[in-house]
């Protein structure tokens, strides 16, 4: 239950195009994240699936049923809002029961479902309270509980964790994943936080400026970014990206002595955008090294070392506390790094 098919979905506001030509399928029971910077159209897409905004073209189908002409409540979905959107004048219980009451669910069934949802989220002690008597984290749970009590075939989340502080956010993220495994309902989740997207999702739809950059599993997104945008947006620290030119046995970053070898026989253009993940680059102290340490940023389990590489910069991530000092010359080892090449004009991935 809950397969969502988007086919050429478009949204325009007057003459401005907000979302163009979205086509993809959210599989039954999958957790799919719409990831992108603010203004990329991800929330608009979610609102269109929910029916809170009309679509300007294309079609949306849920379980084979065309829904884009249906009002939100006829689409069998629940929505968790960023600001929780709890009804301030109702108790927690009534907040959770409201959607069921509106659907004329029998009273005993409402009671059972609300209790069940409250138990799953450990908010049973608060059922008689008003939202304003709860902490942010508790309100967040009530918002989740309201969705769960409805037992819809699709859950929609609009940045539900962004109002929580960091610690609580990580904890809730884990719980969300657990909940999704327990409930198995199709979920579409909007976030600008790539870490959330990678941890939670079966599939990620990376969006930018209203169009879909890539739709794939977290692994595909991370290791085979389809465009330069995806490569630079996903991954922390950001992927090193340079414009590089073809030399005899690989690509060289101009102005530097860094040459990245490419497999023999590959048909490749003269100049490309070249990308290397910081965590796949090795560095070692070397008086004859081609780079110098510019900054060292330890974060506990890893250390980001930012290097001056001629006129360019390179970031490498090492495990543990690396013992580098600023100004120290180092050599760079890219033999273990996956090579990401992108077309300079289109930004599309080039097969290596």
């Amino acid at each position, binding site marked *: 239950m809950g397969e969502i098919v988007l086919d050429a979905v478009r949204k325009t506001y007057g003459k401005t195009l907000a979302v163009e030509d979205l086509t993809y399928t959210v599989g039954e029971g999958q957790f799919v994240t719409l990831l992108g910077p603010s203004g990329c159209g991800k929330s608009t897409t979610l609102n269109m699936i929910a029916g809170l905004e009309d679509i300007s073209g294309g079609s949306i189908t849920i379980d084979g049923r065309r829904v884009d002409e249906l009002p939100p409540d006829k689409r069998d*979905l629940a*929505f968790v809002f*960023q600001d929780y959107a709890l*009804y301030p*004048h109702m108790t927690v219980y009534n907040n959770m029961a409201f959607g069921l009451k509106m*659907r004329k669910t029998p009273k005993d069934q409402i009671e059972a479902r609300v209790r069940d949802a409250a138990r799953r989220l450990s908010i049973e002690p608060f059922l008689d309270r008003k939202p304003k008597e709860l902490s942010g984290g508790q309100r967040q749970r009530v918002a989740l509980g309201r969705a769960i009590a409805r037992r819809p075939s699709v859950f929609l989340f609009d940045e539900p964790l962004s109002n929580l502080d960091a610690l609580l956010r990580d904890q809730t993220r884990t719980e969300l994943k657990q909940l999704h495994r327990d409930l198995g309902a199709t979920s579409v989740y909007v976030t600008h936080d790539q870490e959330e997207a990678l941890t939670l999702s079966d599939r990620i739809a990376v969006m930018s400026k209203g169009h879909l950059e890539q739709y794939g599993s977290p692994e595909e997104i991370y290791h085979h970014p389809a465009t330069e945008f995806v490569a630079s947006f996903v991954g922390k620290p950001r992927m090193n990206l340079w414009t590089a030119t073809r030399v005899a046995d690989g690509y060289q970053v101009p102005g530097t002595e860094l040459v990245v070898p490419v497999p023999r026989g590959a048909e490749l253009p003269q100049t490309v955008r070249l990308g290397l993940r910081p965590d796949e680059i090795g560095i070692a102290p070397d008086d004859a090294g081609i780079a110098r340490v510019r900054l060292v940023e330890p974060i506990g389990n890893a250390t980001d070392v930012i290097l001056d590489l001629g006129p360019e910069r390179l970031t490498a991530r090492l495990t543990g506390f690396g013992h580098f000092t600023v100004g120290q010359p180092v050599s760079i080892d890219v033999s273990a790094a996956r090579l990401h090449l992108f077309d300079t004009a289109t930004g599309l991935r080039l097969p290596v």
Partner: protein
Amino acid sequence: MTEPQTEPQTEPKTLPRPTGATPSTTRAPRGLSWKARRRGFTVLHRFLLVVAMIFFVAPFLWMLLYSLLPAELLQRRDPDLDLTRITFSEYGDLLTDSSFLKPMGTSALVALLTTLICLALGSFAAYGIARFRFRGRQPLLLAMMATQAIPVIVLAVPLFIIIRGMGLFDTPWALVIVYTATILPLVIWMMVGFFEAIPASLEKAARIDGCNRWQMLLRIAFPLAATGLAATGIFAFITAWSDFFLAKILTASGSTTLPVRTASFQGLFAMDYTAAATAGVITSLPVLVLTLAAQKWIVRGLTEGAVKG
């Protein structure tokens, strides 16, 4: 603050919080310390509040005294506030006098009807203005404010002619119509603020939960704006209830209101002070009670309405 470090034993009294502003002033030779100045402002603030209170409350208390004590005690050169002679006889007289009870009924009817109509029309109009973006929305709001800038006295004669032409002169309906017309724009203006304060995501949630526009209005928007609506209602009631000028012009003996009737105790040659004061107290009592009951809401309502737009 100077620190009595050299003689910690002998000066422990400076450590507890000083009771007045004087200690700091004597100790800080280069002008007042920030703390002392703040305390000074607080004192000044309180003092001004007391003055303002006396200014507003004293006349009312004087009226209350007049209504309770025989006039001859108060009209002496040296008023005799003999509280043992307090009597409610004038209240008894007025509240059994049909020539007083009728205006009272008219006032209540007119004020209540005006309030209800203003609330019913105003809440829907305000909701529409707050929630929908349509052409002319801003001009509409401005126009409503602009109507308030027209002095009533300018409208008095035209209104009189219109009302007489409608055959409604000296009827409660004339007052209800005119009051609604003057109060409704303000009511809408205030209410728009209340509805705009309701987050849009709540209505989205309600739509997902299965509410149509009506249900959204009745189950979400109105309950959430309830305190604001109540405050606005009280505001409308008080305004309609206390109007003197329009009632004086648009009614005669047939459906006069309390303020007009109260003023009529002032005769051409004589004045029944006790009766006038008693009527005054009775007239202002509902206003007083409602204002006290709803002062928090009213202040919020007025300011919220004021900053929007």
